[in-house]
């Protein structure tokens, strides 16, 4: 599980995930919730003089055994979804990215 927190921009790093949309003073969306930040996003926010942003942070870790069980269940489920295509080269990147993404959501 994750929880939103307004963090100083200078503490944000590429790979951090936005817990809510970042908007300008007029309320227009600059970056949507769920976005994985890159260096260029951070540069853009600096140029706009935005100083704080809502980042997802890891909550208190759950029982490691339970976490491992959840991660294995996710792996099995994704492999089932890719049951006809897992060995195909065109599917490889998506398969691994989806396993990683869905496992991270159970942190």
């Amino acid at each position: 599980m994750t929880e939103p927190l307004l963090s100083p921009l200078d503490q944000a790093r590429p790979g951090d995930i936005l817990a809510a949309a970042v908007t300008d003073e007029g309320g227009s969306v600059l970056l949507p919730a769920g976005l994985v930040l890159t260096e260029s996003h951070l540069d853009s926010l600096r140029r706009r003089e935005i100083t704080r942003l809502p980042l997802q942070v890891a909550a208190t870790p759950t029982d490691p055994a339970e976490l491992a069980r959840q991660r294995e269940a996710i792996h099995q489920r994704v492999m089932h979804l890719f049951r006809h295509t897992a060995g195909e080269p065109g599917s490889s990147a998506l398969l691994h990215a989806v396993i990683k993404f869905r496992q991270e959501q159970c942190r």
Partner: protein
Amino acid sequence: MTHPSLAELADKIRLLPAMPMIALDVIRSLQDSDLDVDGLARRISQDQAIAARVLRVANSPFYGLQKQVGSIHDAIVVLGLSTVRSLVLAASMITCLPGGGAGSFSRDAFWRHGLGTAVAAEALARVLQRPPELMFIAGLLHDIGRLAMVSLYPDTFAALREQALREDRPLGLLEAGCFGFDHAEAGARLAALWNFPPSIVDAIGRHHTPGDTSPGSLAGIIHYADAIARALELDGEVDGQVPHLDQATIDGLGVSWEQLNSVLAETQSRFESCRLMLG
């Protein structure tokens, strides 16, 4: 079991309920370089059921608006014309098109997958620095031929779907074997009849066979977005499977590992917003 031709399907399409006027206005506006935005906003506002669905999404947490928008005009000012126009088209299609009574086919799951593919295509557009609007619309409608087949030939389609589940085979292959055409070809015919831009017609028709399109084509993006939506299980179906991905097409898009992770996160997040449209 009947075996209709693509021409017979096209003839029967007129039996489907007519699209709302505002949907036709939106489709026409996609190719109008001299668009009267205020006039379009007024016409959207007159269809209160559609306007309400659009505002529900516009006011969702995804957009993070500091102040709720109460009118289509305000939504266009804050979110932009292309975003609102995409949402209007989605709300119109979801509201007006039927699709039920064909065995285990779920209309709700159908539209969840359409919206999931739409937001995945839009997320890909963002990382590829392409205009997102046509991506969203093509993603939303990429399987529309299947909805026409379900509506016009419910018994045949129900039998095909049961066979696909029983034998764990892709439904599209069984469609082609039974009808002589699949949902992609049917959808392209339907989209052409509705006067969608040719690029959308082409993307719908080739979203499972993008190999002969140019690198970075709209069809190629929808091909990838379709698989992303299936892999994230946005349709909520228990029997889902990720379709074949054409390696040359995926390589041709040039999406990096970091960009793909960003696309997955944005797709999941935006989908939670857009699904509010379903009721």
